[in-house]
């Protein structure tokens, strides 16, 4: 049975944040899942971001799908399956290309996703779940994503979630000049949000993190001020905008905590942007007067209109992805043909040599060296002429062709070693 690429997952388009929270498991558990799915010859990839959790597998379709379903159920229960989508073969490839190129993101064109998919691939490589085929697939997906970013305006036109947060903050505060920003968490997303807010005029930037050294490093990078994680209330009293990006499994900013700071804040508006999944801010915080708490799903709705504005750039990106996908499929079809051709030629050469030796040995009068060379050249010419058309046909791959059917047919007709062929229709 041939191998295929299969993708099973949920995203912001199909599943509510509460479900995605359950599926957002730490790296250790992702490694365990990869280890189970990627039993040789299968390969596997686990993409986990705020907005999507996707399991990719490359292997025999039927057993692979069942294994992926079992793993997703293990992570999120039956509800996860109810919200999941499944892509097979070329559709799975196209999906991965689109995800990496940020064409399937909540904020189309946001730059973080490519780094996140790369991290997922590196993890899969570290645990031995991603090998030759997924390596090629991911390399092609990353290359397509880079083209989309550099050859279209999607990077300029797109606003990241952080930029969407800036837009929302402007609706509350008018402008961000002189507004104090508190970054809770010191990761990449936090840094990006900090830079966006700082470029909009927000000052000062406060950074807090469970590991103070990380907060200090980010504060240095943003020209901000690091604060100890406890007590968080002290930092909240100073802040106008709070951006949360921690990996905490439970909310770290509660309704009681914020309510306790309202008086000392003199009722100043407080805008909480919770970019973390699981959520860092209790949803009930939004019930307080002059406090506005937004999670990632809320921000999705904010950017929906912006997405329409970026439609042109995204359309160009889609065309580039389609082009790169076609090239990848053609290259792979060619790769399928070359080993078959090499084997066919080796087989023909072995037959030629064997038959030539037998014929020469059966001659009553041995041929001179020159005569033997002429006969050998003639047999080589016959083999080459016979194999000329098959060689041309096997190397001629229609652009976008996912499979090389001739390679399969030649291998079948001549009984070539199936294991050495790059089989599959991923």
């Amino acid at each position, binding site marked *: 049975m041939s191998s295929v690429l299969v993708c099973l997952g949920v995203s912001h388009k199909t599943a509510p944040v509460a479900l995605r929270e359950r599926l957002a498991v730490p790296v250790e558990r992702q490694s365990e899942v990869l280890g189970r799915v990627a039993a040789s010859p299968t390969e596997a990839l686990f993409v986990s971001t705020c907005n999507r959790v996707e399991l990719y597998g490359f292997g025999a379709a039927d057993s692979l799908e069942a294994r992926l379903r079992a793993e997703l159920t293990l992570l999120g229960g039956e509800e996860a399956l109810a919200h999941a989508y499944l892509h097979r073969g070329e559709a799975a490839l196209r999906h991965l290309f689109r995800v990496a190129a940020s064409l399937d993101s909540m904020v189309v064109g946001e730059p973080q996703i490519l780094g996140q998919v790369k991290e997922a691939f590196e993890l899969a490589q570290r645990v031995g779940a991603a090998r030759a085929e997924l390596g090629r697939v991911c390399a092609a997906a990353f290359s397509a994503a880079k083209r989309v970013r550099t050859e279209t305006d999607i990077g300029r036109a797109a606003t990241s979630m952080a930029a969407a947060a800036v837009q929302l903050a*402007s*609706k509350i505060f*008018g402008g961000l000049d002189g507004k104090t920003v508190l970054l809770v968490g010191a990761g990449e997303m936090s840094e990006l949000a900090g830079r966006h807010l700082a470029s909009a005029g927000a000052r000062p930037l406060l950074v807090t993190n469970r590991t103070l050294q990380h907060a200090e490093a980010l504060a240095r990078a943003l020209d901000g001020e690091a604060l100890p994680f406890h007590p968080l209330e002290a930092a909240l009293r100073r802040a106008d905008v709070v951006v949360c990006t921690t990996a905490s499994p439970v909310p770290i900013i509660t309704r009681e905590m914020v309510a306790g700071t309202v008086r000392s804040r003199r*009722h100043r*508006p407080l805008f909480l942007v919770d970019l973390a999944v699981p959520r860092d801010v209790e949803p009930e915080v939004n019930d307080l*007067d*002059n406090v506005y708490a*937004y999670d990632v799903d809320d921000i999705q709705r904010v950017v929906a*209109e912006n997405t329409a504005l970026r439609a042109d750039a995204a359309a160009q990106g889609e065309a580039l992805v389609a082009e790169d996908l076609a090239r990848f499929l053609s290259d792979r079809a060619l790769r399928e043909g070359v080993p078959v051709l090499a084997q066919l030629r080796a087989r023909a050469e072995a037959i030629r040599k064997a038959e030539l030796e037998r014929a020469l040995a059966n001659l009553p009068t041995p041929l001179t060296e020159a005569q033997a060379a002429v006969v050998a050249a003639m047999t080589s010419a016959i083999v080459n002429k016979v194999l000329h058309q098959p060689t041309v046909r096997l190397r001629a791959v229609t652009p976008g062709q996912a499979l090389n059917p001739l390679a399969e047919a030649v291998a079948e007709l001549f009984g070539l070693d199936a294991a050495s062929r790059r089989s599959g229709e991923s």
Partner: protein
Amino acid sequence: MSLSRLCFVLAFHAYGFGAIAYVTLLAGRRKGMVWTARVLTAVGWVLQGVGLALLLSGQGWRPHGFAEALSILAFLLVALFLTVELRTQAPVLGAFLAPAAVAVWLPALWLGPSAQPSTSGPWTPMLLAHIGIALTGLAVFGVATGVAVAFLLLERQVKGKRFGLLFQRIPSLELLDGLNRRLVLWGFVALSLTLVTGLWVASRTGGARTFQAVEITTAVAWLVFAGLLQARVLAGWRGRRVAWLTMAGFGLLVLSLVGTYGPGGGR
């Protein structure tokens, strides 16, 4: 039809079309429409001003009855909201205030002119100042109330995470809250002066020594606004509850106006 009446009819139509133009700004801001709304409203304001000047000059500058009080109030309301709208460059505020001005003036046109002056007592400069300050204060609170309504609508959208037309068009919550603070402060000054001049006029004319419902309502409104300003300054109150208090205080002042000039008001 008298010339003043003709001016009023034309002004009312200009306000009406101006209000429609302002309301369309909620659907999408177009520069041409902004200026159409502003010009129509300004033309209406000039026409109404001319009409009022013609009318009041013929009455010895004494306003007659509820209708003329409302007419002057609408005139002041339009002047204020045009000023605020131009200063803040937030023409969408007109979508709330222009229809309000039309709504205030509509009963005045329906009621028609009154033959009798608004007060039977002697007309003094202080009485004129009292009436002028009272109506100006009411207009300021009227604009503050329009701003408060805009705040509450936007705040509701921001809280409820609904990003409709109002979310896109209304200026920021902080701008609206700041505007409300300044307007309430100026309105409160005017209201305080209204009370002082009112007491002074009453003491000079030997008016009623006992507090009537109108005075009590006005005093309660003054207390509401005094408390509101104190809460703003001392406790930092802002936002939704301040907007609601502004509307409540304005409601009391409207009751007071109706009590003063309205049917059975006796003034």
